[in-house]
């Protein structure tokens, strides 16, 4: 359903992503793990179309998205929930959610708000509050709910559990699982091994700009065991 072939990305002279190829099926959640600075966020930004210096093929249901601007990719079904600065701070929670829905029909817009509030009831309580005044965790929930509002075929999610209390991490993991049950493909970058293990059936490991292996998170009991395995694979 979703395929990336030989993706490269650069920041200035720095060759950050060095030929990544990966696949995500319909209704499948796939993790992308690795240490800080190995290029995970850059990979997601490149797929979303936010970086200009990239090359490689990005196929979503056989349509080639590479070279398209970010808003066209979004309209083709590619959603992106970034790690930071994901909300419009001077807009209310409800306005933030509506933006994701405005490219859809009016009926879908109303459904979208209901679905977002069902997913995270706290957002309903704070619907009139400016998004910039929400806690970090609530902003994460808002960004994820809004990303799902787009009804994407594939959702890229960057560090959704960062800075969240365990109870909220569980909420996020459940939201991702629910989305996959509705047929959304998800590529998630997260440092939380628990979240990846709960939400994803398989995951890619990344190190220094390249993928170093594909694993089943369920096969590992701890993130250290996983890291030892994939770093060992690469060294081998």
């Amino acid at each position, binding site marked *: 359903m979703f395929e990336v072939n030989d993706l490269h990305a650069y920041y200035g002279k720095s060759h950050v992503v060095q030929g990544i190829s990966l696949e995500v099926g319909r209704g499948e959640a796939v993790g992308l793990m690795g240490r800080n600075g190995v290029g995970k966020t850059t990979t997601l930004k490149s797929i979303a179309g*936010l970086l200009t210096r990239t090359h490689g093929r990005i196929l979503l249901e056989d349509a080639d998205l590479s070279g398209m601007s*970010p*808003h066209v990719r*979004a309209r083709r079904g590619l959603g992106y929930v*970034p790690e930071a600065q994901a909300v419009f*701070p001077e807009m209310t929670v409800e*306005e933030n959610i509506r*933006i994701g829905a405005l490219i859809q029909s009016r009926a879908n817009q109303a459904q979208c708000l209901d679905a977002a509030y069902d997913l995270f009831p706290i957002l309903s309580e704070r619907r009139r509050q400016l998004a910039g005044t929400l806690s970090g965790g609530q902003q994460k929930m808002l960004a994820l709910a*809004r990303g799902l509002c787009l009804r994407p075929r594939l959702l890229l999610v960057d560090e959704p559990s960062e800075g969240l209390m365990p109870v909220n991490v569980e909420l996020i993991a459940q939201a991702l699982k629910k989305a996959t049950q509705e047929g959304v493909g998800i590529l998630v970058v997260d440092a939380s091994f628990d979240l990846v293990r709960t939400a994803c059936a398989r995951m890619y490991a990344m190190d220094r700009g390249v993928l170093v292996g594909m694993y089943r998170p369920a096969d590992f009991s701890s993130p250290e065991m996983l890291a030892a395995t994939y770093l060992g694979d690469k060294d081998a």
Partner: protein
Amino acid sequence: MNQLVLQLLNGLVVGSSLALVASGLALLFGVLDIINFAQGEFFMMGAYVLWVVLGATGNYALGLIAATVVVAVGGGLLLLLITQPLLEKAHVLVLLATLGVSLIIQQLAQNVFGGDAKLLQPPIQDSIDIGPITYPLYDLVIIAVGLGLLTAGFFWLRYAKYGVWVRAVAQNRPMAAVLGVPVPRVYLLAFVISSGLAGIAGGMLAPVTSVFPNIGGPVILNSLIVVVAGGLGNFRGAAWIAILFGEVQAVGSMLMPPVVVELISFGLVIVLLVIRSRRKTVLVRL
């Protein structure tokens, strides 16, 4: 007392027109982080288009519509043309480019229409009694249209699809893009609306101020002051400060010479800037 009411109304005429020009400038800064130095010349173009159409048809309403549409489309496309290649580069280049455009438009107006002031009769000659004073009806129409447009702009930014998208782009451009907001179209819309607001203001004020090539000079100066004081990129702030600015100048002129009023206005702006510098200002906000 009569004099005070009269000056308050005069202040509203100047302030509401200035608010149109300045809020256009603020909108553009909010969305694209650029300052359009040609905004004063767009105001002047609006006045000339009205003068030309009025001369040809004798129809003021048609002239005002033409002033708005011609400046909105012409100014919008011109801004698109000159800023598009420069947007990814240093912002100072866009600033210099719009400054260059303003000088070119001014010189063109001088060459085509001459340097003399064109006098226009207001389309409505009647006056009405407001309590103890008699006031030109046309000036009241300027106030009503100016305030009406600003109110419409407020609601458009708040509730209309493209209005919400304009605010979204102003606050977080990459995020807006990945949510499907057509950012290039929003840019073009900001160019067109910003130019159109200057065009309609120029057309409306033409019978009051007369029309000449340098008419945009004080307009851009005052607009820049208003936009900076209102919070760069803040549509509502620019509108309020413009009206306040018009009132201070009008009422102040009752008490002291115009030069002193100007100095006090600038002093007021400095005080506002100091107050604003103590808190983080925000982009297009409602």
